[in-house]
Every structure is written in C-alpha cells, then in structure tokens.
C-alpha cells in the first residue's frame, strides 16, 4: 500500500499536487508547509491522525463552540470566509477575494463557486448571513454572540439586546456568491477575526429540519475538509474526509481522531506508547522530557499573559506607587526560568510580544536590572508610608492549582524579603474564585488572559473603564480614548504602545509572564503550524510520514 512521494522544497503553499495519492504512483510534489528542505519522505499508508483532547468539547455547532478544543474540531468540520496558514496569516477560505472600502467599514466578499456542503449543496452567501444572524439572535442565545458585537457588524449590539430584529444585521447576501458586510465603525483587523469558528456558516435547511439534533454524527452537514463520523462523549470523536470539500484533492490526512484524555501524564504515556500523535507535556516535566526526547518536544510562545490584578477600589491598592512597588519587586526571571522552566518569558507589558503587528513598547522598567527595580520598589513603598515599622499586609487570591500556588509562594517571598510585605495566600475553587474576582473582593488576584484574535486590542481593551472584564476596576478616560481612536487608525500600534506605557505608569495589573505551549508531536506528523502563535491547526494542512 505504500507509495512514495518525493517531497521537495516549498515553492508555494496553497495549490499542490498531492492528488497523486489516489493513483498510488510515484509523484513529485512540493512540500506543503515546512520551510525546511525535506528530502525523500515517504507518506505513511495509514493517514489517520490521532491527538489528545483535554476535555469533552462543548458543542459541534460553530455558533455554540466556546472552547479551544472545540474550535479545533470546528475548523475541520466547517470553513469560514478565511483560513490561517502555518504562520497565522490570513489566506482565502470560502471567500476567494474581498474588497475593503469606506475606511474599513464596508467589506465585500466574493465566494468561490466550488465551495460545497458535505451533502453536495453549494455554500452561498445566504448561509453566512443565516449563521451570523443566528449568532446575534437573543433567542438562540449563543455564549459567543458578543463576538458579533466586537466585530462591529452593524446593529449587532441592538440585536443582542433585543432592540432590533436579527434580519437587520449588517451582513447581506447581494447574490449567491457575494456577501456584503457593513460595520458600525472602522475596524482594520475585521478580516482577521473571520477565522474564528463563531463566524462559520451553517446549512439553514439542515439546522431547521433537524433542530438540536443536527450536530449528531451522520446528521451534521459541514463545509470543512472533514465530516463527523463518530462521537462518544468523554471518549472520542472521529472525523473523516469530506469528498465534497473544494480542496479535497490537496488534503492528505484521511481520518482524524480526537481522544479525550483528562490526565496529562496518562496522555503522555499513551503518546510514548504510540497511541496518539500529539499531546501536551505534563506540567513541570518539560526539562526532563526535552532531554529524553528532544526531537518530539516543542515549546512555543502563546497568545496569553499571566498577571496579578490589583483591586484599585481598595486602599492602599488605589495608590499607583504601591502597585508599582509590588510589580517591580517580582523577579520574573526566577518565575519563568526556574519555577516554570518550560519556555515562558517574563512579562513587562500586557500584550504578548509575538502578537501580530505589535511592536513591544519601550517601557523604562523593563530595561532596569532587578537590583535597581528592587531599590526603586522600596522607595515607592516608603513614599506610600509602608516600611519595616508599618508593614503592608495583603492577601493573594488564586484559583486552586499547583502552579498558581508555587508562583504565589515565590512572589510572597520576594515581597517579604525585599519589601517586608506580609502576605496571606488564599485559594478558591475556580467558579468561586471568578465570583470573588468579579465583585471585586480581593487585594491581589492571579489572572490569565488569552487573545480571542491575533491583535493587541484583544488584550488592551480588557482594561477599558466600561469593560465588564476589567476586574482591577482601574479607570482612565485617556486610556479609553487611546484605544477607541486606535480602531480608525491606519497604524493602531502607535496607540497600543502609548496604552502599554500608560499601563506601566499606573500598573493596574502586574504582568508576570507570557505563556508557552509545551507539546509533544510525533516525528511522523508533519505540517504542524509552529509559527502560528494561536496554534490554530487545520488537519487538512498536515500529513503523516513513515
């Protein structure tokens, strides 16, 4: 059954002739994704890709998917207007091309006429309109309906609030293959947001005929490279090639199996036993695993930041000097390189440096040595009236987890030895912790944030005064203005840099580190999007070698 494919150096990424797979003959093809030259790679006869999934996904319905694992499945079963390539850049999906006009408020998408649903029907602009209206419809009550609002699609906010009918949404099918979208305000990164699963089309007739059951295996009709074959809750989901997918002939992987394995050590054992091709490296074991198996162990930066929130409604954390003193005296190198030791990097600003287009700002404190920062921290805290005679007392709130605990202990020690701060640690179960944070009923709280899309605003808008997610309750009209005006700028980075500088001055949050994702990938699996910071994997872009 083996057939040889001599894989050459990448010449172009999209169209290539792996269609020869069917004919079982020797063929020369361009390497799909990896930029490194690869010679004489033999495609595996069994193209079944198996990966570990931490938890059961919440839904197969694109407008209901909320979790990262669910989005992975969603991107295989459905296809939006655009996809991401291995670098995370936008490439055409169902949309062949698009025109942007009226200062980033009007977008016209031309759909490819070869795009089909898995039941053979053509994918039309009407399907997108239906899906987008569905996402905003209060009766459907999607937990991601707010995504339509932050995309600024005309009337989205009013529809969600129940003030306007879903049909008034600013997305219109001009004809079967033309989708016109109007935004209520300029949004330069609008197209980027369209690789999000909640914007994917759904087949109206199937959804309305089958109701809630339309996502069951056998019933689900999608327009992605794969169709759902089997689903056993908390055990597995299986997807197989969609013969009607427009780019099916360039797809190599025949079958994708997601195995739900809760325990990360167990998952790694099964990876070692060859039962899965991809899994996560168990926490705290990265160094050892890297030594044991360097060829299959990877650490990649993630679009996520770990930070401590200061409750700015509570004295003395309403004083920027106190906040700065606490933030300065955290030795980020100790936390990133010694405690976590798995590719994380110390953070001096909120937005991860690898975010697309983001230019890391020149914040003063990031350039100083830890000794200088410590000295400055002592001065600042003394200025605020705290010292050896009058020690600052605070509690750190975190959700129950070994890693959060280790970090909290380390930071409380740093504060104790450097500033004489007396810290108590308080851990709470996840949902209780969220509740406490939101109230806000804490002094200092651990927090983490992962970007919804690859653009700095997904981080920075979090600290805007009217943002419900702003748990530090810090308010600055100047900061709000910077971010509001950024949406109409041709280069919003100027404002993002200013915003980060404002954060460094006011320090409503203390950035601690930027996340890294540590994964084990079988040496037989090729095409993993290592350079896509969102790690958005498309099974259709990968392949297995012998």
């Amino acid at each position, binding site marked *: 059954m083996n057939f040889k494919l001599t894989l050459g150096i990448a010449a172009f990424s999209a169209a290539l002739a792996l269609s020869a797979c069917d004919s079982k003959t020797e063929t020369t093809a361009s390497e799909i994704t990896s930029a490194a030259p690869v010679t004489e790679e033999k495609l595996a006869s069994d193209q079944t890709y198996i990966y570990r999934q931490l938890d*059961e996904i919440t839904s197969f319905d694109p407008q209901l998917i909320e979790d990262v694992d669910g989005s992975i499945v969603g991107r295989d079963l459905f296809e939006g207007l655009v996809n991401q390539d291995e670098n995370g850049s936008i490439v055409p999906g169902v949309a062949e091309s698009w025109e942007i006009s009226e200062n980033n408020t009007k977008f016209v998408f031309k759909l490819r006429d070869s795009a089909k649903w898995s039941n053979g029907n053509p994918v039309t602009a009407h399907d997108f309109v239906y899906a987008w209206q569905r996402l905003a419809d209060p009766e459907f009550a999607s937990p991601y309906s707010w995504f339509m609002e932050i995309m600024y699609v005309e009337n989205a906010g009013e529809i969600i609030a129940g003030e306007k009918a879903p049909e008034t949404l600013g997305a219109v099918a001009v004809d079967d293959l033309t989708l016109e979208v109007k935004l209520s305000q300029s949004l330069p990164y609008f197209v980027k947001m369209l690789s999000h699963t909640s914007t994917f089309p759904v087949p109206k007739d199937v959804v309305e005929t089958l109701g809630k059951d339309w996502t069951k295996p056998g019933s689900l009709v999608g327009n992605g490279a794969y169709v759902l074959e089997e689903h056993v*809750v908390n*055990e597995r989901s299986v997807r197989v090639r969609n013969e009607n997918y427009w780019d099916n002939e360039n797809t190599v992987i025949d079958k994708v199996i997601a195995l739900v394995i809760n325990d990360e050590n*167990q998952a790694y054992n099964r990876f070692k036993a060859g039962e899965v091709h991809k899994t996560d490296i168990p926490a705290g074991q990265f160094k050892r695993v890297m030594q044991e198996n360097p060829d299959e162990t990877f650490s990649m930066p993630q679009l996520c930041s770990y930070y401590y929130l200061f409750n700015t409604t509570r004295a003395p954390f309403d004083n920027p000097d106190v906040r700065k003193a606490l933030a300065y005296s955290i030795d980020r190198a100790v936390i990133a390189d010694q405690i976590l030791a798995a590719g994380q990097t110390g953070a001096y600003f909120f937005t991860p440096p690898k975010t697309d287009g983001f230019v890391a700002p020149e914040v003063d404190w990031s350039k100083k040595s830890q000794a200088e920062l410590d000295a400055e921290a002592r001065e600042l805290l003394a200025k605020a009236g705290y010292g050896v005679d009058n020690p600052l007392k605070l509690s750190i709130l975190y959700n129950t987890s070994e890693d959060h605990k280790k970090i909290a202990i380390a930071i409380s020690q740093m504060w104790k030895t450097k500033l004489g701060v007396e810290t108590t640690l308080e851990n709470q179960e996840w949902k209780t912790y969220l509740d406490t944070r939101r109230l806000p009923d804490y002094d200092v709280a651990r927090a983490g944030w992962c970007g919804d899309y690859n653009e700095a605003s997904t981080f920075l808008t979090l600290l805007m005064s009217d943002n419900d997610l702003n748990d530090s309750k810090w308010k600055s009209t100047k900061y709000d203005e910077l971010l509001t005006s950024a949406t109409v700028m041709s280069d919003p980075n100027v404002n993002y840099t200013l915003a980060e500088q404002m954060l460094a001055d006011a320090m409503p949050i203390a950035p601690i580190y930027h996340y890294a994702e540590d994964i084990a990938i079988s040496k037989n699996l090729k095409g993993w999007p290592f350079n896509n910071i969102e790690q958005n994997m498309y099974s259709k872009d990968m392949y297995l070698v012998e």
Partner: protein
Amino acid sequence: MLNFIFRRLLIAVPTLIFLVVFSFLIMHSAPGGPFDSEKPIPPAVKANIEKKYGLDQPLYKQMLNYIGGIVTEFDFGPSFRYKDRTVNELIADGFPVTLTYGFIAFVFAVSIGVSIGVYAALHQNSWLDYSTLSFAIVGQILPNFVMAPLLVLIFTNTLGWLPGGGWEGGKIQFIILPAVALGTSYLASIARITRSSMLEVLHSNFIRTAKAKGLPYKTIIFKHALKPAMLPVISYLGPAFVGMITGSVIIDTFFSTGGIGLHFVNSALNRDYSVLMGVTILLGTLTILFSTLVDILYAWIDPKIRY
C-alpha cells in the same frame, strides 16, 4: 418477609425526595453558575442564555419545573455545558460503559477475593496465608490513582500487551485494565473480610460440634461455615457494588472510558446543574436500591434481622 420488604421500600421514597431537594439547594447555593468563565459574557448575552435555560426564574419554580419534567416525561433537561446533548443522552451513553467495567470489576473482586480469603483462613499462619494477606494489604493501600498509571506503565508502555486507554465500544482489551484497577482494592478488602470472618466461624462451637460428629471436611466448610461467614462480606458488597457500577472518576480520567464517573466531578466543577442532578439522582437511587437489597438478603440469610 414481604412486610419487611415493603417497609424498607417505603422508607426509600422519602429518602430519595430529600436527596433531590437537598442537592438542588446545595448546588444552587455554590458561588458562580454554569455560564461563568474567565471571559465573562456581557450581561445582555448572559440574560439571553439564562432565559433560554429558565435560570431567570425564582429557585422554587426552577425546582418544581425540574421535578415536574422528571415525573411527567422522565426528562432530566438539557446539559448546560454540552450544548448538543441532553442529560438523558449523556447518561444513556455513559452508564452502560460504567456498568460494564464496574460489573466485571465486581465479579473479578468477589470471585478472587472470596476464594483467597477462604483459602487463607483454611491455611491460617501458613506462608500462603501470609502472602495472600500481604497481597491484600498492598492492594488495599494502593489507591486506584496509583494503580491505574502503574498498570499502564507495565502492560502498555513496557509489555505493550494492552491499550493504555479508550473504550472503542467495549472491546475486551479495553476493559481489562480499568476493571482490574477499579477492582483491586475491593478485592483486597473482600479477601481480608472473608478471611477474618471465616476464621471466626471456624473457631465457633457449632463447627467444633460438626467436626466432632465426624462430618466430612468439605461439608463443614461449604455447607456450614461459608454461609455465616459471608454475612459481613455481603454487608460490604452492597455499597461496594454501587461504588463500582456508578463508576469512578479516577478510572474515567485515567482510561478515558467515557463512563459516568467523570460527569459527577466535572458537572459539579462546571456548575452543569442538570447533569449534576441527573447523576446524583441515578447514584442516589442505586445506593438506596442496593442497600435495601442487601438488607433483604441479610434478612434472608439471618432470620434474626427480620424482627
């Protein structure tokens, strides 16, 4: 006897009702809700979702609706987390899995546990007795979250005989490790209880009389000693059986079996109210049912208990 059974069943009903009401209230008093997450959804969106699931209604109404749904249509509601699924579907998918490996674990634990317990008692203080006893103690103190990875290390990673997890519709090679991991500590307890109870019986007067009468050894053991020796074992088996067939979060976590045990913990953490209630009611009903059964069995073996 019938009167006794009737009385026991009558007590079971209010117990179950109390369980439902109590769990419902406790569950709702925990902070946070099913739709809270690190990225909280805007209030307007949250209001829409809560309306859809009826969470905007007062608590007593929610409870009445919930109980009403169960009584009239046997409908345990939709899962708040797994939005494509209803609780009935989740339980219908997961319970057979748990039942399968739980039942096999039970048979494994009882058959081997009782056998080695009896064997050890009959050869008291021999090396066989000591070795079975030490095995039993090790089996009992090794929790299944140690047992499970240990089994995988030996049978999957080292020997490569059995898969390290999964279910695949219940193929035998996928059942062995979960059943053994689940059954071992029960097996050890059963062996120890059987041994000590058997020893006690063997030293009692009526066995001495039987021996004096010159009854054959086999008759003494199987006809006269075994039945009374089983009493403490049976009282242990009731809850043990329920424990095994309602699944174990450890087994489901380690072996990805897709059983119901995982729902029990996850639904509590996710505040997936309807799933949590569903599995609580299932577990509660089974526990009550089997303790009633054990009582009846007990009464049948030992008439003293009936009165």
